[in-house]
């Protein structure tokens, strides 16, 4: 006779309980880069919107930044390591594929024996991981999940290649995800995600030099045409309208892409006074870390407040993309 399996009852909804971030101390300005490659402060500000970025020193690792960001998010949530049972690290820049980042990050934070895995959806990684964590909590597979986007792009750049070294940077951002209480609004909307694997060569690591390569204009065209519709789908899945969005936090790929997405959303009814993340100006493009970094910085500056409705949208190598609406804790 076979036994009958049971399933946990789970939670009606999930929400973000706390956030945190970490950046290296070293600031690299455009003028610093102009000493290494043929470029200028004016060109970089004009084409990509970056004024300065943070670059980790040689012995700072992806995991170091993940540990710091994760610890801060835990503290912000008012939880302790023993409350966490699942750790997801979204990253595409570990020095090697084994061991993963999540298990050692958890260990160093003091989280005992959690489910721990890395997730590689490149610059869309944070939204993928947040969607996964939210569904794990809703299904009852996790009680509290720590979601971290952490990257050390500087290890994967050719510092003589001016088409990439001016854009990418290092950092980490994190969020703690738990059940939404019965009196809460749902805090994390359904994820709208997808991929375009036929375009996989548009952003890749070249094996010749182990450095990132991208077809800049093709990526720009893709991002400025295909990503706003993904964000609109996330709004629709959440049962909202564009006018409900208080803050737009797109992946900080290029300020001109950010502006273009905002413009398209406004043409579909998003408000003129919707705040738009521009964290790339001081942080550069940090791939999976850019959305939680922007969120944490905007909250510290008072540009995002508790209860605000935020629209997150990540996109990048894969090509892959993901978007969801969340309520700021």
């Amino acid at each position, binding site marked *: 006779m076979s036994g009958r399996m049971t399933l946990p009852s789970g939670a009606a909804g999930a929400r973000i309980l706390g956030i945190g971030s970490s950046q290296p101390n070293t600031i690299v300005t455009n003028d610093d880069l102009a000493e290494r490659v043929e470029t200028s402060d004016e060109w970089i500000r*004009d*084409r990509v919107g970056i004024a300065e970025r943070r670059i980790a020193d040689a012995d700072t690792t992806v995991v170091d930044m993940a540990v710091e960001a994760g610890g801060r998010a835990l503290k912000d949530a008012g939880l302790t390591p023993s409350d966490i049972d699942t750790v997801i690290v979204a990253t595409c820049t570990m020095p090697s594929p084994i061991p993963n980042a999540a298990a050692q990050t958890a260990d160093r934070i003091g989280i005992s024996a959690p489910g721990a895995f890395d997730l590689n959806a490149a610059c869309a990684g944070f939204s993928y991981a947040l969607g996964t964590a939210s569904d794990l909590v809703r299904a009852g597979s996790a009680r509290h999940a720590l979601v971290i986007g952490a990257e050390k792009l500087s290890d994967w750049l050719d510092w003589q290649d001016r088409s990439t070294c001016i854009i990418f940077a290092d950092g980490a951002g994190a969020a703690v995800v738990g059940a939404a209480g019965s009196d809460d609004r749902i805090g994390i909307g359904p994820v709208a995600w997808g991929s375009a694997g036929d375009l996989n060569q548009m952003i890749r690591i070249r094996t010749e030099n182990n450095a990132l390569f991208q077809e800049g*204009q*093709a990526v*720009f*065209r893709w991002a*400025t*045409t295909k990503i706003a519709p993904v964000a609109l789908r996330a709004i629709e899945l959440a049962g909202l309208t564009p006018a409900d969005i208080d803050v737009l936090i797109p992946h900080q790929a290029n300020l*001109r892409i950010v502006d*273009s997405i905002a413009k398209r959303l406004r043409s579909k009814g998003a408000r003129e006074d919707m705040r738009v993340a521009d964290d790339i100006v001081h942080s550069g493009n940090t791939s999976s870390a850019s959305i939680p970094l922007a969120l944490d910085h905007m909250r510290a500056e008072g540009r995002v407040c508790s209860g605000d409705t935020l629209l997150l949208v990540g996109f990048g190598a894969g090509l892959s993309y993901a978007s969801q609406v969340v309520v700021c804790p």
Partner: protein
Amino acid sequence: MADNAEILSGLAEIVEEVAGIDAADVSTEKSFVDDLDIDSLSMVEIAVQAEDKFGVKIPDDQLAELKTVGDAVSYIAKNK
């Protein structure tokens, strides 16, 4: 089929919208980069809108060949 004058005025509207250049300044002999000071990323945005408006395909490698407003007008006229 729209004639070249119609394509020019449609294109000029797009250029004005994307790059903030007065549509009246967008004439056939002007070079996008040298005369109108439009960079390659704005050119992509102009191409995307022109694709929608005129029902043409303007791939990135083609786009690089369209140096003047006149080049773009004839390309659109030929390929729409």
